[in-house]
């Protein structure tokens, strides 16, 4: 400990040592180079200085980076959550297929985002797309320098003082999440290959465009649209793409009777589904608080609390709503409800007070139940409720930011204008509505176009009736998930 203390006293005495560090670091900013030289005149003792000085200088970067990376790891872990929610909500005969999709979606995302997506989303460019540093995240960059000191082609991320690879990795896990949302919605009938190719397009093109508009310095960013952690960027984008996929695929065999009756097709494991939601809730503590992209203690604590309260409130409100409508508390609905609360609080988490998060959560839980009923009524067959959760509540959460925003709740909230209910009128709500609408149009159109072209160019994107009945596991993979169990499958 003492040596660190000494470090602090003596840190400025060894500018050459500092330069050495600068040379070694691939991203050392050259701008402030004179400062240590000036400082060097005051401190006497020479020993241990290089390491100590470096150590202190690195502390903020290091702390920000470990926070961002740990948060990113948690978000990565959400892939497991999605995989389990989706497979749990589908039938045993499609389990391998769904798990495989959820697995490969992150692998494909990693490559697609490295090769193109990151540059398209965060590269300096025009109002719609990034144009510089497009491929392999190899544009000029002197991160972790921030603000005006930042010199590179990824200006949209110059507010966070972490290394470029930390920015890339954190953004990658978000991109993967958007792609994985689609997986559940199109489950139990889409061809494996079609989904893999869609993921490439989603993470390589659709998501980066939507993201550039909002987080990449594009048009919506300039209009004051806010989305702290991605109710729109991640969840609505995923949701619109999912909706397009569902429409192009049509419902599963047996889901809707000829008379229009809705037939439930129960998932094969509520254990999987429940594990999945717990893992997602856990991962969301990386998703939302991590979106500070800095070790900003006050904001992190605030965001984690609003996130949690919204999730808890939505769990209960969805449970109660379903209980009243159906007569019994339905676990599947409460699980969807929990996710709905998390999705809804994702945009406003840093901008609203804890009591507001409670209200947002309660509303999200009600909305998701009604949305599930609604989508079933209009014959949108979504095996896992991805549209009700991510689309409906992605939109709701984005709007809710415009209603409840309060710039004083934590340091990170300063960017917002007061919401409608806090007397801000349309100042913040206006851009939010604009953003919801624009993203809807852009993403839905791009997705429909993709599915349409896919259908034309390939043998169709849906498996045959026989394959669907006998299960995708056998037909797509020649495999079965539970060979030692006696299964009971009738549809």
């Amino acid at each position, binding site marked *: 400990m003492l040596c660190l203390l000494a470090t602090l006293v003596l840190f400025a005495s060894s500018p050459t040592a500092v330069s050495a560090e600068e040379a070694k670091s691939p991203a050392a900013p050259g701008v402030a180079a004179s400062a240590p030289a000036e400082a060097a005149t005051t401190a006497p003792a020479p020993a241990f200085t290089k390491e100590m000085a470096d150590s202190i200088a690195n502390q903020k970067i290091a702390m920000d980076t470990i926070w961002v990376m740990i948060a990113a790891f948690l978000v990565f872990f959400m892939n497991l959550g999605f995989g389990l929610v989706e497979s749990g909500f589908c039938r045993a005969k499609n389990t391998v297929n769904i798990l495989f999709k959820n697995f490969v979606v992150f692998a494909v995302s990693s490559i697609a985002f490295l090769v193109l997506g990151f540059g398209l989303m965060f590269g300096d460019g025009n109002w719609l797309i990034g144009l510089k540093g497009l491929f392999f995240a190899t544009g000029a960059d002197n991160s972790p320098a921030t603000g005006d000191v930042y010199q590179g082609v990824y200006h949209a991320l110059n507010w966070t003082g972490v290394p470029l690879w930390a920015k890339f990795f954190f953004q990658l896990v978000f991109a993967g999440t958007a792609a994985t949302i689609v997986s559940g919605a199109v489950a139990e009938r889409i061809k494996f290959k079609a989904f893999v190719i869609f993921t490439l397009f989603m993470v390589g093109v659709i998501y980066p465009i939507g993201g550039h508009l909002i987080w990449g310095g594009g048009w919506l960013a300039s209009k004051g649209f806010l989305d702290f952690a991605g109710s729109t960027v991640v969840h609505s984008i995923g949701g619109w793409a999912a909706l397009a996929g569902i429409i192009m695929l049509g419902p599963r065999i047996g889901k809707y009777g000829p008379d229009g009756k809705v037939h439930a097709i129960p998932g094969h494991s509520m254990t999987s589904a429940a594990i999945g939601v717990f893992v997602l809730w856990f991962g969301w503590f990386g998703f939302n608080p991590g979106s500070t992209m800095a070790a900003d203690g006050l904001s992190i604590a605030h965001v984690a609390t609003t996130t949690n309260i919204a999730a808890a409130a939505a769990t209960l409100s969805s449970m109660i709503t379903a209980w009243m409508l159906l007569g019994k508390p339905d676990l599947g609905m409460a699980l969807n409800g929990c996710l709905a609360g998390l999705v809804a609080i994702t945009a406003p988490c840093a901008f609203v007070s804890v009591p507001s998060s409670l209200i947002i959560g309660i509303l999200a839980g009600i909305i998701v139940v009604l949305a599930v009923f609604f989508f079933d009524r209009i014959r949108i067959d979504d095996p896992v409720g991805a549209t009700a959760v991510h689309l409906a509540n992605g939109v709701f959460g984005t709007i809710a930011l415009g209603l409840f925003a309060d710039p004083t709740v934590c340091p990170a909230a300063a960017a917002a204008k007061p919401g409608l209910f806090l007397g801000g009128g349309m100042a913040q709500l206006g851009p939010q509505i604009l953003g919801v609408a624009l993203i809807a149009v852009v993403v839905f159109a791009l997705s429909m176009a993709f599915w349409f072209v896919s259908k034309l160019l390939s043998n169709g994107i849906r498996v045959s009736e026989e394959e669907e*009945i006998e299960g995708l596991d*056998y037909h797509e*993979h*020649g*495999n*079965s998930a539970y060979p030692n169990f*006696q*299964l*009971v*499958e*009738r*549809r």
Partner: protein
Amino acid sequence: MKKIEAIVKPFKLEDVKKALSEIGITGMTVLEVKGFGRQKGHTEIYRGAEYVVDFLPKIKVEVAVPAESVPAVVERIVTAAHTGKFGDGKIFVYDLEEVVRIRTGERGKEAL
């Protein structure tokens, strides 16, 4: 009385049940079974190795009926379970000597 056993494809169970209900059959017992026959099994892959699954999932439906109902029941099942492809299954008819309803102790046709 007779006992009719039908081995059918799993996804045909609902149709068979409906077909039987329509002619007033109100009870039946159903089992998960695996069948081996002309319908070929398939090859599965597991971590790089292939293996043959030659027992295929089937449903066995058991219905006890008065002797005179047999032709109608058989005909109904054949119609409902038919796809025309290998593996549609078989119907077996056995003699049934006695039936007892546990709840009431009724016997014979009364108990069906």
